[in-house]
């Protein structure tokens, strides 16, 4: 079906002469064939958001309906790739020049590459929808080739050997299947059921793991003004968290940041497998100067890729940086459509869109009965660092973990600049079992002690602001001192040194050391020592440098310090 353009204004194009076109159909716009998507139908007028720059497009040029919604290509070859918001492979596009010019496209998956396919089912087997039919090795991940979630039945034919993603590997229930499947990005892939998230996603960041843990299949938001470390935190998570697959969506952010990830990830090792981090990562880059509509699509593309690997039985973590840019893309299109604005110009459906997006996370039983999870971590960029704005508030209504970045911490280079007073996690109890049984039986006690002390320290700081530190009794001075140790020597963690990843054991051991010092200090006060004596105790500088130690050396030092304070 072909229509004609009647209006062009920025990324919005209006066409006529397309009766029967469906909402969210993908269309080709103008003589250049720019990709767009139908977002409103009003009488004869069809409103299209275009994923590319519309300069020079004129009324009268044709619009072609492709008949399908925006779909993601799923299959072997996704890992270590970098795509734009509509799954165009940026490495391939680079062959056309250094700029992403208009109207060019390339398939997401390499059509020529041969993959060694090994069937795991045989002719005659009866398969459920979405069942796994074979395996391909994608770097050192076993890529499980699945039936599309809509297809099941009897295996009529299945072959072993080397295939491209377009060659037929099996015939099931009369349907010829390749290793590639397509799925509409705006629709969640089905699962058998959702399960309780009770396994932590270990991030190696002490403030996250020890105080505000995230569960595999959970959701978290990191709101913070600029310069508070959203991106550094997201990148640290992408590097060190114990997920099998990472989907990193750079949504409306900086080009140099993506260049940095591209430069760094192939060289960094996955701490668990020793392979380059890039081999477990898919990057989606839609930088701030790339077309705004594609930014809107990029988060859905990310979720779809994540669900695909989840369905294979993997733990997937999706980082979206930043969801505010996605919301702004919604706002921009909404405003061009002339919709009645809600709060701060955002459309009234912002809240439901945000909720739908995060609802795609979860720890699940897949259609094949495997366990898999998709964890979602969204950065939020509130204007002026004001958390009362609509995107932050709508996000906090649905996510379970809130890592609040604090500008004052960032300004004094306390990193990660996550506030221990404002953040929260609703998974603390769910994952406690894992820590108590697998790491240290004292975990819960130590955690409660640390948060309690930090809370107390904060209250005392307020008094200090009025009366000065010297007016406090010694006992309170010691609380201030231990609070400071917790903040500076435990919570602060440099993302650019070896300390960037602390194992769960190391985290708890460090807490044990600080608590031992606290107990000792309180006891010394009873025995007549002053807070001033404790300030200059030999253990203090050692605790300060404890985090720099690794492995056996760390344990030796920890034991030594504990020995000093009994």
């Amino acid at each position, binding site marked *: 079906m072909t229509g004609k353009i009647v209006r062009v204004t920025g990324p919005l194009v209006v066409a006529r002469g397309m009766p029967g076109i469906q909402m969210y159909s993908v269309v080709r716009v103008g003589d250049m064939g720019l990709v767009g998507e139908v977002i409103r139908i009003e009488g004869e007028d069809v409103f299209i958001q275009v994923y590319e720059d519309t300069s020079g497009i004129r009324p009268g040029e044709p619009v072609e309906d492709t008949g399908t919604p925006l779909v993601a290509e799923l299959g072997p070859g996704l890992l270590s790739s970098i795509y734009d918001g509509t799954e165009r492979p940026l490495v391939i596009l680079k062959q056309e020049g250094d700029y992403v010019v208009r109207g060019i496209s390339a398939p997401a998956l390499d059509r020529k590459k041969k993959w060694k396919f090994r069937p795991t089912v045989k002719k005659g087997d009866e398969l459920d929808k979405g069942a796994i039919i074979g395996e391909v090795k994608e770097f050192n991940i076993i890529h499980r080739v699945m039936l599309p979630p809509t297809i099941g039945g009897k295996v009529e034919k299945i072959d072993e050997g080397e295939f491209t993603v377009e060659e037929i590997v099996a015939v099931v229930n009369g349907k010829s299947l390749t290793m590639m499947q397509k799925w509409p990005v705006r629709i969640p892939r089905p699962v058998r059921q959702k399960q309780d998230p009770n396994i932590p996603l270990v991030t190696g960041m002490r403030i996250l793991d020890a105080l505000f843990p995230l569960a595999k299949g959970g959701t978290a938001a990191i709101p913070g003004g600029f310069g508070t470390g959203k991106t550094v935190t997201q990148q640290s998570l992408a590097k060190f968290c114990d997920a099998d697959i990472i989907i990193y969506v750079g949504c409306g952010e900086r080009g140099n940041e*993506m260049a940095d990830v591209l430069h760094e990830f192939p060289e960094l090792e996955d701490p668990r497998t020793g392979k380059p981090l890039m081999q477990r990562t898919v990057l989606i880059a839609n930088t701030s100067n790339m077309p705004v509509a594609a930014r809107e699509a990029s988060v859905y593309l990310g979720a779809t890729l994540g669900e695909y690997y989840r369905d294979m039985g993997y733990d997937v973590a999706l980082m979206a940086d930043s969801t505010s840019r996605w919301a702004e893309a919604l706002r921009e299109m909404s405003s061009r459509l002339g919709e009645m604005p809600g709060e701060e110009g955002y459309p009234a459906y912002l809240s439901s869109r945000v909720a739908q997006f995060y609802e795609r996370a979860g720890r699940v039983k897949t259609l094949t009965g495997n366990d898999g999870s998709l964890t979602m971590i969204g950065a939020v960029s509130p204007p002026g*660092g004001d958390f009362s704005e609509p995107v932050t508030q709508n996000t906090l209504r649905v996510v379970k973990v809130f890592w609040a970045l604090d500008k004052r911490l960032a300004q004094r*280079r306390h990193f990660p600049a996550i506030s221990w007073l404002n953040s929260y996690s609703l998974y603390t109890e769910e994952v406690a079992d894992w820590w108590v049984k697998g790491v240290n039986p004292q975990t819960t006690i130590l955690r409660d002690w640390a948060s309690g002390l930090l809370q107390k320290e904060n209250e005392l700081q307020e008094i200090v602001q009025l009366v000065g530190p010297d007016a406090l009794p010694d006992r309170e001075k010691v609380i201030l001192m231990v609070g400071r140790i917790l903040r500076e020597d435990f919570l602060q963690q440099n993302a650019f040194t070896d300390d960037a990843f602390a194992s769960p054991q190391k985290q708890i051991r460090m807490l044990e050391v600080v608590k031992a010092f606290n107990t000792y200090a309180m006891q010394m006060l009873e025995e007549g020592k002053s807070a001033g004596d404790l300030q200059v105790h030999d253990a203090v*500088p050692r605790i300060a440098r404890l985090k720099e130690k690794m492995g056996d050396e760390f344990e030796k030092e920890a034991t030594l310090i504990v020995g000093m304070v009994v």
Partner: protein
Amino acid sequence: MAFIKEFQTVSEIKGPLLFVEGVEGAGYDELVRIRTADGDLTGKVLDARKGMAVVQVFEGTFGVSKQARVRFTGDVVRLGVGSDMVGRVFDGLGRPIDGGLQPKPEEKLEITGAALNPVSRSVPQDFIQTGVSTIDVMNTLVRGQKLPIFSGSGLPHNKLAVQIARQATVKGTEGFNVIFGAMGITSEEAKFFIREFERTGAIEHSTLFLNLADDPAIERLMTPRMALTAAEYLAYEQGMHILVILTDLTNYCEALREISAAREEIPGRRGYPGYMYTDLATLYERAGRVHGRTGSITQMPFLTMPNDDMTHPIPDLTGYITEGQVVLSRALHRRGIYPPINPLPSLSRLMNQGIGEGKTRDDHYGVSNQLYAFYAEGMDLRNLVAIVGEAALGAKDRQILKFANDFEDRFIRQGFHENRSVEVSLDIAWDLFSEVPETELKKIKTQFIERHLKQKGKTDGSEGNSK
């Protein structure tokens, strides 16, 4: 698309916008020429409809009547670029105003640059020495970075811009070619820049695009794009290292708001359009380096924060796009400290790429972090002292408080003509560290403390004698 048509069907003139009826097939973003009784104007299409086009007139609509003849050129706005542009002065639309002829264009480039493929970008990592301690040590600038200066009215940001333009170098290379894009600054300010550039001979390596305060406001929306198009050509085609100074982005954003209001768009925060983030990104993201090409574009946009408010949409959206910010402080300025850079809210995101052994010095990272920590603590103490008095502080706190004062006086403060090497700046920091207890230097590796404080021990002695 070779059709060129002229229309005399203007139906409405509103602010900088013309509504032209009966137009068939004008392209979005198309360049438009408008012939009036008083002369020719240029503009571009903002909204292309069947039978109607909305045209934004760069020079403003003063003197335009409904009899104006509007010609759609079939092309978009372009800038003729060539290596002859270096050393020249242009107006905000790229026409020479230095009395010389239009330089011979080697290419005519669209001024709305396409987005650089992130895969083509190479990571900025060459340390730029600006000779300003607070920037070099604490907010290091690297080649290909975009680092804005957040200023306020009445603060000496122009002096700082000139000082940086004059002093910026990358070790072992020749200096930068400067492209200067002025948006709505006063003629007095423009004269200051031209005079300073001429005085130091920098003008020979500079290209100026000037849209002054009395030039049409809408033209300002074009000026930075002209400047950046020239920058891209000189950097990526001619292999030059370009430092782009844009000032003042606040005026640019006002013009953007003016257009948005004239189009009766739904306003976002404080009346600025909802797409201001995207619009600013299409400017700022044009900084960078590209794999396989020699040149680079480093951007230093200047903006004045209305009422010194960093949460105002202009600095706020800028901060979300740029790779950090350098913030000028009125409090420091009042105390007579130049350059009044407050390091605490300042930040350079690409700093880590550009510092350390082989780039600046191995102790750089720790020194910077330690300066931040002490100064932040010192500022807290200064607030506390205002309430409880200095007597309520312990000995250690008093040392930190003194550190903060000395830091402002000896590290932040420097002369307009004082070009400090990064080594000199780092040594000043060690000098300051020598007056606090060594155990407090928690952010610095022990090996550096030993090396530099021991060295200091000697120099301190000699300084002591000379006093």
